[in-house]
């Protein structure tokens, strides 16, 4: 335990811990949005868009994270018209992913910049967290719970069923736009912590665990934040203790805990079974 306290005296470790704490507030709720909107392919697409944005940043000399935030946000918003289609977003996301990666590789090739910088961000390094990353996560830590708090009723209806929400007076298009932009920006902001490829650890895994325990939007949102804190802090502590790379350890801790939550008997969380009962 002394090792952890000693390591926490290092500024980059403290910054990483702060980033994780802030990330544990906003990002798991974003994961709940992703699960609720059934838009899991969107996060893959955003990782690829982020790679393109990073390539553009390296080419132009702009901050890669800022480029990723802006391009992912714009792309998320542009997806809104597709979200209303019954066929979902999967096909369009496949196309977007392929195009984004091709464009990123072309950009890197034409610019002649070292592609390692871009690919490092794909893998991430929490100890390389900068104050700008923490600021982005802090904004999300305030904005996401605020969005949730202000639109809880509308969100509950939209995440349950789009048509029911429409017929209940919810501004479905506007709210979907807001959610997609939030999801896209959150994924871009989380890239530095675990890398684009492992961003699920911060967003999706807490939400998937919370889905097993909570039976309403408030319950799921609350549980996802609790799980996020446990996964992130637990994973980070283990990584520091055993001198392991934090990104993969965070993912493994989150993944194993999520599996455990799903392996536990349902009756532990809900006395009434989840599936339909007889009348």
């Amino acid at each position, binding site marked *: 335990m002394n090792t952890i306290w000693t390591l926490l005296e290092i500024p980059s470790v403290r910054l990483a811990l702060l980033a994780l704490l802030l990330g544990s507030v906003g990002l798991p709720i974003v994961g709940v949005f992703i699960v*609720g909107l059934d838009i899991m392919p969107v996060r893959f697409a955003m990782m690829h868009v982020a790679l393109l944005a990073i390539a553009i940043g390296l080419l132009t000399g702009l901050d890669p994270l800022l480029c990723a935030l802006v391009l992912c946000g714009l792309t998320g918003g542009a997806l809104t018209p597709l979200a209303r289609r019954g066929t979902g977003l999967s096909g369009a996301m496949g196309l977007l992913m392929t195009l984004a990666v091709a464009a990123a590789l072309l950009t890197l090739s034409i610019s002649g910049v070292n592609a390692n910088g871009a690919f490092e961000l794909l893998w991430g390094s929490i100890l390389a967290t900068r104050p700008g990353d923490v600021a982005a996560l802090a904004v999300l830590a305030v904005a996401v719970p605020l969005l949730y708090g202000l639109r809880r*009723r509308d969100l509950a209806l939209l995440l349950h069923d789009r048509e029911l929400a*429409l*017929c209940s*007076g919810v*501004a479905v298009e506007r709210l979907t736009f807001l959610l997609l932009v939030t999801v896209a920006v959150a994924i871009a902001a989380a890239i530095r912590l675990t890398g684009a490829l492992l961003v699920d650890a911060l967003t999706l895994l807490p939400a998937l665990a919370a889905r097993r325990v909570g039976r*309403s*939007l408030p319950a799921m949102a609350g549980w996802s934040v609790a799980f996020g804190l446990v996964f992130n802090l637990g994973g980070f502590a283990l990584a520091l203790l055993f001198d392991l790379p934090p990104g993969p350890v965070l993912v493994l801790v989150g993944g194993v805990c999520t599996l455990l939550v799903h392996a536990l008997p349902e009756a532990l969380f809900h006395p009434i079974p*989840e599936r339909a009962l007889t009348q």
Partner: protein
Amino acid sequence: MVPSPPEPADPPEPSPPGSRANAAGLRLSAVSCRHGRLLAVDRVDLTLGPGEHLAITGTNGSGKSTLLRAILGLHREVSGEIEVAGRQARGGAGWARRRAEVAWIPQRQATGRFPLPVRELLASGGHPARSLAAAEELGVAGLLERPIGTLSGGQAQRVYLARALGQVAAGAGLLLADEPTAALDFAGQEQVAAVLAGLPVSVVVVTHDRVVARACGRVAEMAAGRLREAG
């Protein structure tokens, strides 16, 4: 083509609950709906006076549900004119008004990938107190904290009826009910038929249930997308 679905705005001021003054007429003129190349509803004309009740029967796939969804703007490929309370829906505010004027019991009740407690579903009708009272009358008040997806088909239909009664109390003048008794036992069918018959608003109910059809003043049959009034 009916304008693309809508952005809701502020709903209209509710009228006194249960008042016949709420009842909204419905007029359909040459309404056609497509599912891609398939013509699901073919030039349907219909006039329903305020407070009138109409049952639409017909075989599966004859276009009944599509017609109801077109009235709510949930089906996109629509041509012709649809008026509720003498108004067509145009633009976001128009569709928001339409949806506030129309209570809806869907055929496939949304059981959702995301849990929604019955209490919140009832509140979404716009008049939580009336919906809760209706849930009590319909015997589903004990399910308020359960996610709607965990209910049986019959329980879910009762919950959606209770929600629709809340919508009527909140000012909806037309109720569209799509097979509201399909999952109910005989006693439940009679109970729902009686509740619908007693409503002071206009009602269009799609049904295969003779008890419900008999309780309506008018019956029309839909076949291959065409609507034909029964004698």
